[in-house]
């Protein structure tokens, strides 16, 4: 009798916890339409083969480089661990998270994130952190990223955060309850549409151009982490013309790279060599590169990586070739799908793009 009661109690607790878990899965955003960037970070855990190059940073990396191009043209396997407005401490913890499973030869960090010295927005935090696998690293990433009004428990139990989505649930929330279709390959966010640069906004004057102490402390931690793991660190500045990249910031990054013996590449200063054309290679008037721009930048950085860090061409590896052949097929299919959508609607509706302005 007593045993029966205990069993009933255990069963009840399991049922309650199980249904709460299901409920939580249901209300969590799936990021399969519109703001799909929320799916970027978790896509890393689907990887089955190692990478020689890991990109870390914000939207300036996940839209500026095409890992398929790097592979197909130079045999360099790479992955982009980036997400929207990814702050430098998030990049640090994503790198730490990456190093728990593999050891790349080169880490490329986009320096735009140095401009932020404190957490910016809960929504962006979520886009980066929700996709991370649970570990001590994720916990520290959350602690470092939380806005003053955020609570750790909202990350531990996302139901508390997303419960209010009950009124906006769609069929996608049921369909992708436990898994979703692949939206990216190797952390690259493909966009084939074009929205040329029309004006170059002038940067606002800042009261202080020095990077913040916290941001620089995490820069040091990234450098140290790479050194400890015998990984080459490369700093880059993607060729976005906005937000403004100030000369004072450039000077500080150059100094830092010089002091630590790091390669620093500012793509804004290599427009001629990269061949970036701001009338065809951006999909949002110069903030981010489209596919054409990303392929150009990949073709530019590929030889630099190969020659500077002596990265081998791994196209001879049968397992890698097999895997990357699949990725290439996916890439081509995605490109074809986007072009077809573009032809049908005139804009990428599925990715939340705006319709082109009427004349």
């Amino acid at each position, binding site marked *: 009798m007593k045993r029966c009661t205990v069993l009933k109690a255990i069963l009840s607790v399991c049922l309650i916890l199980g249904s709460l878990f299901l409920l939580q899965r249901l209300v969590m955003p799936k990021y399969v339409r519109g703001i799909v960037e929320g799916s970027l970070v978790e896509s890393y855990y689907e990887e089955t083969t190692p990478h020689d190059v890991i990109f870390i940073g914000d939207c300036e990396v996940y839209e500026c480089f095409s890992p398929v191009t790097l592979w197909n043209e130079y045999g360099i396997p790479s992955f982009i661990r980036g997400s929207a407005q990814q702050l430098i401490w998030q990049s640090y913890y994503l790198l730490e998270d990456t190093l728990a499973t593999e050891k790349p030869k080169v880490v490329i960090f986009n320096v735009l994130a140095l401009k932020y010295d404190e957490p910016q927005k809960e929504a962006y935090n979520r886009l980066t952190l929700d996709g991370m696998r649970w570990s001590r690293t994720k916990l520290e990433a959350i602690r470092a990223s939380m806005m003053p009004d955020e609570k750790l428990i909202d990350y531990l139990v996302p139901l508390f955060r997303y419960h*209010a989505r009950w009124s906006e649930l769609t069929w996608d929330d049921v369909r992708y309850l436990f898994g979703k279709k692949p939206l990216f390959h190797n952390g690259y966010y493909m966009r084939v549409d074009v929205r040329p640069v029309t004006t170059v906004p002038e940067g606002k004057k800042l009261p202080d151009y020095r990077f913040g102490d916290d941001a620089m402390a995490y820069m040091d931690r990234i450098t140290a982490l790479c050194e400890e793991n015998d990984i080459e660190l490369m700093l880059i500045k993607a060729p976005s013309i906005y937000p403004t990249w100030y000369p004072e910031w450039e000077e500080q990054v150059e100094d830092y790279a010089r002091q630590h013996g790091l390669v620093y590449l500012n793509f804004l200063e290599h427009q001629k060599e990269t061949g970036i054309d701001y009338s065809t290679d951006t999909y949002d008037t110069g903030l981010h590169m489209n596919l054409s721009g990303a392929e150009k930048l990949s073709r530019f950085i590929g030889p630099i990586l190969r020659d500077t860090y002596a990265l081998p061409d791994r196209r001879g590896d049968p397992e890698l070739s097999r895997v990357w052949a699949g990725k290439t097929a996916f890439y081509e299919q995605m490109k074809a799908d986007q072009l077809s959508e573009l032809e049908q609607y005139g804009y990428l509706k599925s990715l939340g793009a705006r319709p082109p302005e009427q004349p």
Partner: protein
Amino acid sequence: MLFTSYSFIGFILVLFVVYYLVPRRIQWMLLLFSSYLFYFLASPEYLIYISLTTVSTFLAAFWIDHLAAVHQEHLAAHKSSLTRDERKAGKEALKRRQRRYLVACMLLNFGLLAVMKYTNFALANVNSLLQAFGSERQLAFLNLALPMGISFYTFQSMGYLLDVYRGKHPAQKNVFRLALFVSFFPQLVQGPISRYDDLSQTLYGPHAWDWTSVSYGLQRILWGFFKKLVIADRILVAVNTIIRAPEEHQGVFVLVGMLFYTLQLYADFTGGIDITIGIAEVLGIRVKENFNAPFLARNITDYWRRWHISMGTWFRDYLFYPLSVSRPMLNLSRSARRKLGDALGKRVPVYLCTLIVWFATGIWHGSSWNFIVWGLLNGVVIMVSQACEPLYARFHARFQVKDRLAYRAFEIVRTTLLMSAIRLFDCYRDVPLTFRMFGTMFTTPNYGQLFNAEAMKLGLGGADYLVLAAGVAIMVASGIRRKPVSMRERLEPIPAAWRYAAMYLLLIAVLLFGAYGVGYDASQFIYNQF
């Protein structure tokens, strides 16, 4: 720590576990520690005020009790030798000496409450007067932080002291036990205002684990969260939309705001009390009910017997009754009867006492004119209602409708609307604005807007209204009862599996539909502010 905050939920969960793990004889000490910790976490400096109240009340009660004991000993020793007059004189002397301690302690504690709560209100009024008389001089406001729950614990401790003075029960001999009575954290911030002889029966334990009590308590807590998070905090959005933009929301919007605020206040306050009673119940402690279906009241006096019962009875027992039989009132009664005749004369002191009590009730709720007007209006309505009793009697004698369902429903609706209208002072918190907005209900012909879905959104979506409707329906269904038995007792005959399933659904409703977390402003319980 808000009752609905994660930290508070964590706090009580840890307490529940530790409470039943520690030896039973020290459970009350753990409660005292927890209560002081709760207070400390709110603000360490608050501890000074509550400790001062506790110690002063303890000492005063101790001496009052001691004097009574000495007097009793004296009586016992000289039983045969004392004449009746000597005994009477001795008793009067005792009362005089006891009264000194009583008055000193009350002056200290009510003085503390007055200084902390009303100083800036008084200064603001003096400044207004100075301005009205053309003076440019303005007094500076003091930076006084109102200690959390000071109105509640001051009243509770003074109630205890008065009961000791009246010989209702002996004084508590252990200052720490009294400290627990004064600071018991679940009722510290919004009541109820417990009586010592009632709460002390279960407060000090020992309490063995009792699944029924724990289960009832947890259910009650859950029910409180449902009312607060699903109903009160959701409807708050619409109420705020209306009252924060009064120029854009007049006429029908004032009526909607008035009814919504009534609903919000009820769900908020009763929800908070449910959580309080539920926490106490899990700990094996019985806290008295503070509500009894107030919106089934058929007149305003009945309403106040059902709403915030502990406050109403406090004012009745410790202010209205003593005031009514005080010498000045008896003198006034005699003089009024002489001058105005028996019928009217006997009412004068009653009316005066009613107004004084309602003035005190109003200002107890907050240090602003809107609360004073709110209180006085309650008093006036009660007085008018009493004055009209002969008229009612004649009406009922002639028409025989008193026990008809339709008439009862009319009385309930009338009382609810009347109380809701008076509550507008609490809602707008500005006396002239409240009068003006109330007037627009009759002067702004925009009642067609009721059928304009867009205009009636008031910051809420269609789904919010659906949740509200369902939540209110559940709340109303649970509140309507013929006998004074709780919903849980009514559910008792139902098979356990169904009962737990109902509780589970309630939990899901709170988790899913509750207005909490990021994107919602964590709102204080309304009565926390008093």
